[in-house]
């Protein structure tokens, strides 16, 4: 079925267009993003049960962006009376004027930027989904997740608790200017199983997730996720600390995704080029990885949680080849950064929600597949680890340092698994060294969309990342 576009947004669209028109009399350029995204969140464990309607992307509100004399200003609001558009217009202008008064009194200089283009454009997209979150039978879902949690407790060993979660969001966004009217509606869902275990006073927690740009139907069968989470929990309880040092590594697709995202993805967000915060700008056209490295980024790269039709600035979704056989080709760019850099936006201008500023953000970031069989990759390792599971990562676009905290590693000696497991694993290093060391790439490729991405330590958005198995060298601690 198609995910139907918001009735609320359809109803208020004429009044919002009136607001754009009124603002246009005062400002040289005006856009408006309106959102109405509904969802649910259910978390079931043996100790507590939670049912809510909020997810990372549920929201209802608007943000106007205006331009005058080289300066962009924005006002976010969520109290809107279609019968009093003039009143709202006056209120928003007064608030922005009050800010400008302070800025003028302080003699603040402006980073002057031209007005965005405004060409005639309409788009109406309702994407496919199996079911809608707003139609979901929540009591039935509660019963289902409870059964999965109970099964986890029954099948698992050393279990403290088994938490099962399911979230689904029906995203509706409308972007308006004087000449543009873009509307999109899609559903994404994510969930998973968390096993909390304790043995001899040691706590460990494993997680296995599911995420798709589909409806709540993805929760119908969580048996694989449960099985995986149970196995991982035992692996973690049996894990040792790694002896710090440099090792041959094989990264599973989820860890490959973490590298794509943290080690490289943030480094080519081009708002960082504007601020001269990214080393990447100096490497366009230069080698940053081995011949085996090709990386794509974009809402159209794969179909996953970050696959939309247009971004929060009205730029259509794209698919950018960032690295082509080891050579850095380009980055990703929001609309304002593109104006400042004299390039074109790539459909990566995203907001945490209508209340937040748009920045250049990742969508789906993936390494391309290769031709090496996983068995051959394992057989080629003299001493190293197959790394699986992600905990967290942190970007460092200025210096291309890497911080990836990987959940666990399986030791390989002379091409054979020894049975030794290490956890947690802190992988650090220098991005070109890591990407340059990639010597084998498997043909399979997976994308993972259960996580969120921050910029610095804030501005959380949905992203997916992934790739195939990679063989490389890295420092583990």
């Amino acid at each position, binding site marked *: 079925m198609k995910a139907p576009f918001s009735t609320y947004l359809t109803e208020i669209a004429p009044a919002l267009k009136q607001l754009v028109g009124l603002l246009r009399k005062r400002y040289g350029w005006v856009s408006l993003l309106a959102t109405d995204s509904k969802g649910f969140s259910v978390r079931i464990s043996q100790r507590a049960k939670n049912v809510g309607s909020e997810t990372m992307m549920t929201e209802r509100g608007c943000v106007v962006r205006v331009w005058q004399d080289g300066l*962009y200003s924005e006002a976010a*609001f969520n109290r809107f009376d279609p019968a009093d558009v003039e009143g709202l217009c006056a209120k928003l202008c007064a608030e922005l004027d009050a800010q400008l008064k302070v800025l003028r009194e302080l003699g603040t200089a402006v980073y002057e930027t031209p007005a965005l283009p405004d060409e005639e454009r309409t788009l109406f997209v309702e994407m496919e989904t199996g079911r809608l979150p707003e139609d979901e039978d*929540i009591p039935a879902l509660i019963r289902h997740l409870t059964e999965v949690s109970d099964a986890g407790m029954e099948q698992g060993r050393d279990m403290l608790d088994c938490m099962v979660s399911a979230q689904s969001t029906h995203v509706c966004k409308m972007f308006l200017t004087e000449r543009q009217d873009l509307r999109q509606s899609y559903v994404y869902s994510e969930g998973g199983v968390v096993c909390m275990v304790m043995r001899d006073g040691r706590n460990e927690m494993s997680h296995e997730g599911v995420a798709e740009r589909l409806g709540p139907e993805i929760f119908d069968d969580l048996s694989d996720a449960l099985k995986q989470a149970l196995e991982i929990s035992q692996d973690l309880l049996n894990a040792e600390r790694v002896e710090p040092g440099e090792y041959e590594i094989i990264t599973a697709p989820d860890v490959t995704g973490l590298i794509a995202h943290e080690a490289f993805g943030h480094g080519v967000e081009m708002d960082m080029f504007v601020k001269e915060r990214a080393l990447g700008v100096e490497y366009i056209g230069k080698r940053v990885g081995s011949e085996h490295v090709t990386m794509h980024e974009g809402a159209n790269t794969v179909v996953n949680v970050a696959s939309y039709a247009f971004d929060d600035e009205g730029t259509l979704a794209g698919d950018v080849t960032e690295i082509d056989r080891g050579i850095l080709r380009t980055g990703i760019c929001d609309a304002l950064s593109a104006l400042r850099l004299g390039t074109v936006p790539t459909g990566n201008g995203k907001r945490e929600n209508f209340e937040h500023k748009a920045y250049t953000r990742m969508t789906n970031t993936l390494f391309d597949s290769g031709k090496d069989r996983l068995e051959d990759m394992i057989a080629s390792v003299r001493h190293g680890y197959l790394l699986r599971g992600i905990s967290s990562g942190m970007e460092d676009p200025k210096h291309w340092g890497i911080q990836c905290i990987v959940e666990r590693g399986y030791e390989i000696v002379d091409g054979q698994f020894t049975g030794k497991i290490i956890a947690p694993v802190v992988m650090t290093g220098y991005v070109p060294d890591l990407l340059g060391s990639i010597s084998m790439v498997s043909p399979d490729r997976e994308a993972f969309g259960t996580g969120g991405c921050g910029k610095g330590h804030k501005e959380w958005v949905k992203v997916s990342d992934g790739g195939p198995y990679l063989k490389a060298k890295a420092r583990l*601690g």
Partner: protein
Amino acid sequence: MLDMILSLLRESGADAWEVTDSQERGWEFYFIRHRLDQHRAKLVEHIWVKVYVRSEDGKFLGSASAEIAPTATRAEAEATIRELVGRAAYVKNPAYTLVKPDGGEQPAAEPVAVERIARDFLETMEQLPETETEDLNSYEIFVSEVRRRFLNSEGVDVTSVYPSSMVEAVVNARRDGHEIELYRLYKSGSCDREQLTRDLSETLRYGRDKLVAVPTPAIGKTAVVFSTDAAREIYEWFIARMSAGMRYRRISDWTEGKPIAPEFRGDRMTVEAVTKLPNSSANAAYDDEGARIRPRVLIREGIAEASFGSRQFSQYMGLEDSFQPGNFAVSGGTATAEELRQGRYLEVVEFSDFQVNPFNGDIAGEIRLGYWHDGDQVTIVSGGSVSGTMADFVQDLHCSREQRQYNSLLIPAVTRLEGVTVTGAE
């Protein structure tokens, strides 16, 4: 809108309910170098509703929550509440009770001078002691007045009005064509010019040092000294382990009246919930469930004393009179900061993202800037990582008598952990 929701809730058949109405007026300024990239205003209202339904035998209390948009029609709000009542009946949590009015006086709800606070931040950032080689790359200023009203079916109706501010700053330092950056994110109530200037000046100095840093050697296990905001993570782990939620879920086994470590070779810490800290953004008088926030000692000289937390988990742990504090203070250091900086140790002042896993106490972080003190030699280092587990460190943790405040946390200015694994970058 709020009156309509309250009326719908009273007619809904829910056994109990809670409503939080949060209104925010926010001003934001974004700078590249010192040029204004963009400015933003925010005028928003969020109304969250939670309904409760008791099981027939009274043993269970289910809840379901949703945000009702301020633009929702009566029919929309009614449908949402009806749906919540239906869902809550299927959520089987052991019964607990909601907060009741405490009869105490409500603090006056003073309006927040958003414009003045914003002006203070703008001026402070403009006047930082930058040099030709150390300066601000970019910064973002966020200032808000938050007006939060909480009501429940027990008759609680309390309002908190408070300022909430945040500054994100990226600092550059450069020499001979080489440039580095350091990142800071400060949260506070309003603008404390002196503290912000002091902290950012310190960051500018670190930037200078990072330029000459060499790769961290493979040190192995050593003492690591924390003297910047990464130390918050360490103390937040202690606080989390005293929360009723962590104890109820059996993630924390710390028990009232018992020591938090089998033996203490280091300092015995005292951890307290405090109602207010100077300029904290968490100085609201009431918590999210309408309970008045009060002082409470959580750990006294290394002995667990009291938990804190939500009504639900607190009551499950047999704690009737509880709340969720916003501010915490940690003390108990027996040495001075100078005394802790003795012998062989690595002082790390910048991490990529230092983390303490709340579930198992594992620590991890990539070193962006550290000072390796080896005998009389001090080497400025960068790269590599620290790792280990708090379960090992808690027995031999040393902290300074001097304290330093990070928004809602007042903690020892210097913390020393023994036996941390340091992976080198060489």
